[in-house]
């Protein structure tokens, strides 16, 4: 039986991620854990992140960080929101924070104005740049739910883009890693479809 582990490093609400996975799972077991052995034994990983990136990076213990870096290299992994940003090279949030450099690109602040509200909060369209197994049965330009104040403007791993004032990268993919800026667990049918595709995904 496939073991899916949602990595719990003490940041934010993992309830909604695990509930959404449970809602679409057929035979997979969904576990929320920070236990290194559980993470090592898993078949797939979900890497969430909520709040400020500096707190997220700091919440990572040295052991957990080493294990995650090792496991993320070989297992199907889904990174969400700040989890996605942490896999990039760096972020300018909190006066500059170094990322894990697993994916190409950096994170910058969204430019706000009277028309362009920050945080970018709400439903926006996700335009496909390439095809990917995790986008199966999801229409190009479907709406997904976003909540963020920082974004990645360009990356050679870009998979989809979204416009909020500027165009930014709303998801990235590289080998066994799929990373999204939006929250599939809050994106109703399109989001649940993405989770289902993740459970079906074999790299």
């Amino acid at each position, binding site marked *: 039986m496939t073991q899916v582990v949602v990595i719990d490093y003490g940041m*934010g*609400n993992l*309830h*909604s991620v695990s*509930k*959404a996975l449970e*809602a679409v799972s057929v035979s997979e077991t969904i576990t929320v854990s920070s236990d290194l052995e559980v993470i090592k034994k898993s078949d797939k990983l979900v890497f969430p992140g*909520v*709040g*400020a990136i500096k707190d997220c990076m700091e919440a990572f213990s040295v052991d957990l960080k080493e294990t995650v870096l090792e496991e993320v290299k070989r297992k199907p992994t889904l990174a969400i929101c700040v989890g996605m940003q942490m896999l990039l090279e760096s972020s300018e949030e909190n006066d500059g924070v170094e990322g894990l450099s697993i994916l190409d690109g950096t994170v910058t602040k969204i430019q*706000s*104005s*009277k028309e*362009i*509200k*920050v*945080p*970018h*909060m*709400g*439903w*926006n*369209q996700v*335009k496909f740049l390439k095809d990917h197994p995790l986008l199966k049965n999801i229409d190009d*330009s479907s*709406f997904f*739910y*976003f*909540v*963020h*104040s920082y974004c990645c403007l360009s990356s050679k791993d870009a998979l989809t883009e*979204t*416009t*909020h004032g500027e165009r930014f990268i709303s998801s990235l993919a590289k080998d066994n890693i799929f990373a999204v800026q939006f929250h599939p*667990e*809050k*994106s*109703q049918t399109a*989001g*649940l479809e993405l989770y289902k595709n993740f459970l079906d995904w074999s790299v």
Partner: protein
Amino acid sequence: MAVAKRIIPCLDVDKGRVVKGVNFLNIRDAGDPVEIAKRYDKEGADEITMLDITASHETRETTYKTVESIASQVFIPLTVGGGVRSIDDIKKLLRSGADKVSINTSAVENPDFVKEAADKFGSQCIVVAVDAKASSQSEDFWEVVTYGGRNRTGMDVLSWTQQVADYGAGEILLTSMDRDGTKEGFDNDLVFQVSNGISLPVIASGGVGNLDHLIDGIKVGGAEAVLAASIFHFSEYTIKEAKEAMRASGIEVRF
């Protein structure tokens, strides 16, 4: 392509049941919050807001259970407010499955609470609810009120919303106490002034009686989202009808 304008149905929950006062008078029972939330989700609601109107110590556990139940069946954002007084209250609501927490009176009484909450949990989950009452003396002055309008604070809504924006609030839920329950439409001057003054998303609330009111909140008031309760609870309109009307008037909505 831009971020879609949102329709947010609001559930006023009293001891585990959805209720709605009509013109401040008879509170009508509108049903089970979980069933109603599921119906709204199916109809295409963009988010759900749940306000615990009793917010007493005794009924708090019921609230957490309701939140947990909604969050495990409805996969759109859920904001919970009413009686949020401490960091621990926020933590419990987020753990129960709320995505955002709305703070009202506690923010007015202790503005640093907004800062503390945003630092701890991130701006994305901190909504500051502002109840506003127009001044009889001046056209461009709205006063912040608390305790359902019974307590006047003397604070200017425009400077208050600016302050909480600086303190890290992620969104403003703006209710006109003059319009709430009247079905006469939003106070769009108020919505416009607040929305124009800050870069945060503003949710317009209070007074919706028909679908044109929702459209005006966005087109005239400049709100990012519109919140309504009674027009949806008693099935006067469905969320889908509301979205169709908004789309027909040229507003970008999610289908």
